[in-house]
């Protein structure tokens, strides 16, 4: 054995023994920085309220601060737990979270229209936030098993059931936003081998949906007919054999879908859903009415300019023009007070964190831990995409918080736990 190899071996052994040396410090530091930045901005959004009501001010900021302290206190516990503990108890956690979701219908407390909270000793707890962790765990457990393959129908439907069960329970709270987050687990399924056609069809249907709303079914039918014909023609010239029937079927499906969009949109969607789509598509420019939130959020962000108006100086923030600014619309405060520099830095931080988790997950030797980490990255991405997309006016209004930044105890605790479990898995990837 040569010297370097020997040295490497010693180093590996040392790392195995010391969790802190193997910790993903970048992710942890990004996490701490984001939460602190979040608290600063929560302070800013509640600042003017303080003039009238000092209680509210102290409540939101100090609450978030103490929750952060609580989260950090769970860090040693979660980081030193044996990774197998989580794996073995996956179904227990899942069962508990499903029970807690069902229990909401009996003991739940309704806040702003959604029966999503338990009130326990002055704390409100939102079980849907924690059900994400448990679902990610059972997903990982099932997919990591050698007997299971996502390409098999039985596995696919089992997995689908495990994901859809909490979703349905959450939709009935009703909290469709939180339910939508589970769709992010789709990325995990793709990663684990799900046929890419699901992705392609998903994208095609999404595009068809949007364009039908924009242009009407007739134009979309003609365009799809033209495109399918073109692809068919090229295919015919390149390859000798072509399946005419598959083209006809896909064309038919597209046309039927496109024609049914109007029906779906007008009959199945509720008015507020329709409104949200209309705003994003620019079909409705009613700035005082339904588009108010997005419009005010865009004004806040746009008025921030390059360097922002400065901490506590956001006029939109002070005037409470953007509703729910300390929770769902916190990014508009960041855009207004910290400008392009602050907001793009936050976006880059999120991107780096998500990519980092993906990167480290791929290095896992354990399938369970890889899939869980990957699920964490997916859920983080969906929150990031929907929340910031919404404040920037790119995505319809869907009320979900921005992880680590938005005010909200359950959300911060759930994401902290997921991060710490990820850190645990990552640090133990060689065990």
């Amino acid at each position, binding site marked *: 054995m040569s010297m370097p190899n020997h040295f490497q071996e010693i180093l590996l052994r040392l790392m195995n023994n010391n969790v802190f040396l193997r910790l993903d410090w970048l992710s942890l530091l990004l996490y701490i920085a984001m939460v602190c930045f979040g608290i600063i901005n929560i302070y800013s959004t509640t600042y*003017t309220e303080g003039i009238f009501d000092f209680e509210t001010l102290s409540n939101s900021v100090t609450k978030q601060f103490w929750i952060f302290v609580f989260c950090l206190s769970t860090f040693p516990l979660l980081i030193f737990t044996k990774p197998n503990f989580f794996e073995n108890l996956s179904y227990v956690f899942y069962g508990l979270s499903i029970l807690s979701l069902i229990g909401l219908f009996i003991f739940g407390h309704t806040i702003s229209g959604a029966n999503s909270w338990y009130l326990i000793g002055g704390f409100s707890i939102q079980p849907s936030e924690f059900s994400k962790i448990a679902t990610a765990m059972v997903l990982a457990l099932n997919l990591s098993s050698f007997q299971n393959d996502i390409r098999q129908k039985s596995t696919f439907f089992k997995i689908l059931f495990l994901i859809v069960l909490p979703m349905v329970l959450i939709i009935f709270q009703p909290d469709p936003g939180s339910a939508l987050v589970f769709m992010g687990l789709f990325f995990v399924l793709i*990663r684990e081998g799900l046929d890419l056609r699901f992705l392609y069809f998903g994208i095609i249907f999404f595009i068809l949906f949007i364009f039908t709303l924009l242009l009407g079914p007739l134009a979309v039918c003609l365009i799809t007919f033209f495109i399918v014909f073109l692809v068919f023609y090229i295919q015919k010239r390149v390859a000798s054999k072509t399946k005419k029937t598959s083209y006809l079927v896909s064309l038919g499906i597209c046309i039927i879908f496109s024609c049914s969009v109007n029906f779906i949109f007008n009959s199945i969607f509720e008015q507020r859903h329709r409104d949200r789509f209309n705003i994003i598509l620019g079909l409705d420019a009613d700035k005082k009415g339904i588009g108010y939130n997005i419009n005010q959020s865009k004004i806040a962000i746009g*008025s921030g300019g390059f360097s922002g108006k400065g901490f506590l100086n956001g006029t939109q923030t002070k005037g409470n023009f953007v509703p729910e600014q300390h929770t769902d619309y916190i990014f508009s405060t960041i*855009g207004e007070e910290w400008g*392009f520099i602050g*907001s793009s830095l936050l976006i880059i931080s999120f991107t780096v964190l998500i990519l980092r988790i*993906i990167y480290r997950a791929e290095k896992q030797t354990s399938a369970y831990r890889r899939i869980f980490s990957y699920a964490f990255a997916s859920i983080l991405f969906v929150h990031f*995409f929907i929340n910031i997309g919404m404040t920037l006016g790119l995505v319809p209004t869907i009320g979900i918080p921005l992880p680590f930044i938005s005010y909200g105890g359950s959300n911060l605790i759930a994401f902290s736990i997921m991060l710490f479990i990820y850190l645990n898995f990552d640090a133990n990837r060689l065990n």
Partner: protein
Amino acid sequence: MIKKITLLIFTVGCSLLFIFQLINLQLFSPDYLELSNNNAIEKRPIYPNRGMIYDRNGVLIVTNQPVYDLMVIPENLISFDTLELTSFLNISKKDLKKQLKKAKRFSHKLPSVVIRQISKEERASFQEKMWKYPSFYFQKKSVRDYLIPTASNILGYTSEVNESELKNKTDYDIGEMIGRQGIEKAYEKKLRGEKGVSFFQKDRFNRIIGPYEDNTFDKNPVISDNLNLTIDVLLQLYGESLFANKRGGIVAIEPSSGEVLALVSAPNYNPNLLIGRERSNNFKILVNDTVAKPLFDRALQAEYSPGSPFKTLNALIGLQEKVITPETIFTCNKGFSYARGAFMKCHCPVGTKNKLIRSIYNSCNSYFGKTYSKIIESASSSAEGLDRWKTHLEKFGLGNYLGYDLPIGKKGFIPSSTYYDNWYKKGGWKSSTTISNAIGQGEILTTPIQMANFTATIANRGYFFKPHFTKPKSQKIRDSLYPKNYTLIEPQHFETVIEGMHQVVERGTARIAKIKGIAVSGKTGTAENFIRLNNKKTQLTDHSIFVAFAPKENPKIAIAVFVENGYWGSRWAAPIASLMIEKYLTRKVKRSWLEKRMLEGSLIDEYAKPLSGNSFKINE
């Protein structure tokens, strides 16, 4: 492979999309900053109190008083006792409903005006009931307070800037007070001061939630200037009272400075009519009175034939042009024949031989007709003669705007040769054609202030200061603003004419104007005038005119009085001028019999004649 990087592609793609949108919103859409400022920052002007106005002796005439606009915020409206409210505010139920409807249409959350300019007395009685009407409140405003209700023609008035004006006057806010006429308009900038501004942070309901940025962007208002008028308010009031039930005007000027001591226009209006709730009704009444025309400043805007006082100017020009001397004698035969078949009448007995001084105090038409002819014909052509005559007159401030510091006025008229060339064929006219100019009739038109000004010029023996209504801050400013304007006539000629004018009062046509102990010099006038009645040129009773100055040496006051249709100059104008002089110089009028006659005398019947529709007699 692609399955492994799907999430990666989505993450990177979406963050690029976000950053692109951030660049779009934050770096390339400057509109958003303005939108957010409109949203969240309220600019509230701070108005300085409008400048106060004093008379020449420091008597406060105009100050400010608070009035209250009754405001309503429709959002807070609850059912209330309409009957009580309407009776308290003295407004009909229909009007109240109309106003509330209007307010609702404007905005539910923002205040609207229900009733403008409620006086503090009215407000006080209503204040204790206010708790019953939570959606109503009073907003304080500042309007003019006329401590002495006088000189409205000089002061002008203020009113709110209206919407259509805002386009041109970007510096004003809607509802802000602006000077409309007179001093208020001319000195708008000084009186208004410079408004300050205060910024407030608003919330999404448009409610003020506090000062913006700790008032760092606020600007304090610049306090407005107070004005000192040249008007003597006691003299002004006295003049106004003397003109009760008469029409016309008085202009009194201090010859040594050009300061206007009094400017009376009758009929006038009480300036208090144009403040408060009844303002717009009162204003309508004043505007619609097309007979008495109370908004028409007769002292500045009325162009009359000057009549006989104009003879003094012709005498001066004649002397300067050396066509006559003080010793020149013209014979008057109850008038004189100035062309074939044309005769100018005079009241002198047949064969009267007048020298210049006597011609002035007897106001001999023949003498000035002949003088005028000589002035015109002494030049190589009538045209040249007339234009030279006109140049002299222009130096007395006639035929053009005087340039005083009030925004209204009239030029008057002095005909030129081109004017007559247009009327007659070129060269088809001469002095005889225009002989009426000799006695201040004919084409000549002057305003009362122009007459007072030429009287002041005579009193000064050859120069005048531009008349003005406000006292300059310093002697230096006075000298630069109001230099001496010299006539083309040598001082010694004035002495002759002044002696003639003195004799007018001592032994001539205006003996009634004589004041014990004060050497008054003056000249009466009785001017024919016509109106168009039922499309027919109709002559009315002559205007009664008098110009004077006193004392003869070191004159302190020059005055022109014009009484419409008052007949002889000595009947109304001369006594009024004389009383004014006495009042100004001695502060006390001893001739109470004359004062009483003027105060009580009325020409209402005279003015009613042409309106009666019946035929009427003039010059009774």
